């Protein structure tokens, strides 16, 4: 597929104009910063309408096949649209699990019927997707999933529960890892992977209150819920391989995501601004040498992580440990973000003690809430400690942890 620079330039100009024109104004309530933080119907409706509008305008799923509702264009177009969304700081696309994990998975290994049924509705946010991997007793140990899927003719009967289901209250479908055979040699062989409907009898998502006091996800109970075996993706008993494939999309090691922004990023520059206004000893905090040193340390690290993304594209500069940057990205970025949020809180002096909804809370309390919510990224999708095992074993070649 050949594309001209002129064509891309023209598209960029159009995209910039469209987002400038259509970017939503202040909704009058504090928006969440990622799909994992959507806690109220008001927030959800607002974000779903916005995603649908972006898709209908032609700025989402541009590189997905046209026959399933995508744009059928070169990835470069989507990259431009996504960059424009980031540049104009528009609200994020709320159907992240559909757009970034389930969608590429279905396109990669789903049946024709599954592609026809799901892809377009993922893009338009008509179907919201959630993920059923973690269980109450099996967080990071994904291979040990115990939710039972017992075959009964051409159906499976589901019993058990999944937990930490982001968007669980709103989701229409779940990517679900379940145990279809409990008598296998290894725990991994007995797993199957389903594209399960959520709004059927026997499935009950119960909201969980987060450390912030908000509701952002559910524990999802399965009580004799019946789904047809056409919900299987991949072969029965091969669910582990499908789950591993999913994680490559989730961790952005594999490409093929629909695009769009999926969180409201934080920048060290915003914290520098905060330091200009905070006070220490009767002077702006930014004049305090110790605070300056910490700010610069954050700026160096932010720049290093940005530059990592560029260097990762140059094979000649990744000969020693190929893939190290991509494999460690979730770890490095989530940990950085958490420390930055916390530093932004402590910068506020006595005002650090205020919280969201206090009339005098600095920036509406977003740093306080951001710090608490940042644990969703250092815990969810494999804790930082598990990430270190993965990087240590797969990148550095160290033996598996005992």
């Amino acid at each position, binding site marked *: 597929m050949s594309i001209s620079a002129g064509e891309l330039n023209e598209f960029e100009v159009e995209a910039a104009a469209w987002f400038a024109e259509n970017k939503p104004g202040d909704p009058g309530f504090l928006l969440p910063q990622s799909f994992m933080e959507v806690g109220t119907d008001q927030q959800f409706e607002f974000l779903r309408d916005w995603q649908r509008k972006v898709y209908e305008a032609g700025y989402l799923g541009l590189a997905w096949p046209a026959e399933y509702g995508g744009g059928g264009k070169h990835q470069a177009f989507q990259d431009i649209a996504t960059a424009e969304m980031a540049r104009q700081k528009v609200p994020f696309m709320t159907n992240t699990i559909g757009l970034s994990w389930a969608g590429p998975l279905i396109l990669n290994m789903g049946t024709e019927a599954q592609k026809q049924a799901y892809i377009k509705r993922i893009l338009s946010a008509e179907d919201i997707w959630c993920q059923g991997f973690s269980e109450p007793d099996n967080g990071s140990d994904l291979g040990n999933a115990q939710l039972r899927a017992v075959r009964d003719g051409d159906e499976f009967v589901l019993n058990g529960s999944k937990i930490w289901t982001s968007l669980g209250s709103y989701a229409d479908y779940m990517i679900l890892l379940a145990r279809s055979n409990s008598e296998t040699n290894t725990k991994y062989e007995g797993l199957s992977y389903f594209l399960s409907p959520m709004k059927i009898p026997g499935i009950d998502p119960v909201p969980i209150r987060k450390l912030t006091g908000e509701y952002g996800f559910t524990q999802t109970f399965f009580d004799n819920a019946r789904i047809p075996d056409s919900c299987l993706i991949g072969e029965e008993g091969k669910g582990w391989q499908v789950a591993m494939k999913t994680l490559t999309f989730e961790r952005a090691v594999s490409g093929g995501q629909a695009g769009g922004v999926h969180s409201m990023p934080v920048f060290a520059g915003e914290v520098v601004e905060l330091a200009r206004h905070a006070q220490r000893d009767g002077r702006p905090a930014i004049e305090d040498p110790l605070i300056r040193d910490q700010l610069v340390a954050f700026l160096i690290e932010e720049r290093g992580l940005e530059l990592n993304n560029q260097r990762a594209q140059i094979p000649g500069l990744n000969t020693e440990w190929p893939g*190290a940057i991509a494999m460690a990205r979730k770890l490095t970025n989530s940990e950085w973000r958490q420390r930055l949020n916390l530093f932004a809180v402590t910068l506020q002096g006595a005002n650090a003690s205020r919280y969201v909804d206090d009339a005098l809370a600095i920036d509406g309390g977003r740093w306080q809430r951001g710090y608490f919510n940042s644990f969703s990224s250092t815990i969810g999708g494999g804790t930082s400690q598990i990430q270190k095992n993965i990087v240590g074993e797969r990148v550095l070649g160290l*033996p598996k942890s005992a």
Partner: protein
Amino acid sequence: MTEPAEILFSDEQAQLREIAETFSANKAPMAAVRRQLEADAAITTELWQEIAGLGWLGIAIPEDFGGSGLGLGEVVAIVEPMGRNLLSSPLAATTLAAQAILWSGSDEQKSQWLPQLAGGAVAALALTEAHGDWDLCHLTCSASRTASRHGDMLSLSGGKTFVTDAAMADLFLLSLALDGAPALLLVEKSALGEAALHREVVIDETRRSYGLNLNGIEVPVANLLPAADVSGCLKRLHLGACLLYAAEMCGGATGVINLTLEYLKTRRQFDHFIGAYQALKHPMVDALVGLEQARSHLYHAATVFEMGNLTDGRGEVAVRMAKAQAAAAFAFASDRAIQFHGAFGFTYDCDAQLYRRRALWCEQQHGDALHHRKQLAALLLD
């Protein structure tokens, strides 16, 4: 359209890097590094001549003066693999001295020295003084003008320190105060008396460092670099040195991480390879993550150098970030290397100490991480 690439890595750089990797691994295996610790010089004459023969001393020297007309960015691609293997040589000092002559020298100085330096003559940098201040404009060495039958001369006084590889140097690039302002001066080996150099005992035993006593040395006034802005030239030299130290430190961190990994994969305790223990595994990932960021900063800084953007703020920010991050990464990796080798790590025979000593030298020359963050604060926050 999209942002311009901030890291460029040319085919030339990739080729150079590959050759330098093989060369360093072959010529500086640990046994050779250990042998050299006992020798008078940091590097054998034969190996230095081989390096000259490969054209690496002229990489950043224009073709008109016998070099290859590339830049310091390409030199980074050589220095990093050398650092990985702890290969010690006057390559960085010779390269930087040539750059100073190129930036600030007269036509005569360029034609006289650049071809020689490209061809294997050794240059030493005499920029640091006993006060230990990293500010290269903080000068107590001085010169007074005298007239003699040889013409206008400068009579030098004071002393320089940390002049590496001075005993094998043909040329010294010297900073001093003249008429109340910084000046840069070329001093040939022949101008030094017998007792001018004395060996210093330094923390990095792969290096040969000397004190240089300037008292009694006389050189022609014509040996001054005629730059109008000597402070600016000193700053560029400082940033160039930071860039090459950052490269050396990234290489060193790569080497020491591999050294430690090898041990963690072969040493068994309590029925497990010790690398299976998360108390050791996780800090190794921290070391890797620190190094990966350092290398991204390094090759960005190298790119900025190539573009000649050194003296605008962007280049200075890139280089200082690279040095600060590389120092932090190498310090952590080499410190943990000693600890993770257990009792063996406490011995002279364990190679971890060689890297730790190298890391301390590299960080403490031309500004430690804290110093560079302080300079960055002024550039980024004010």
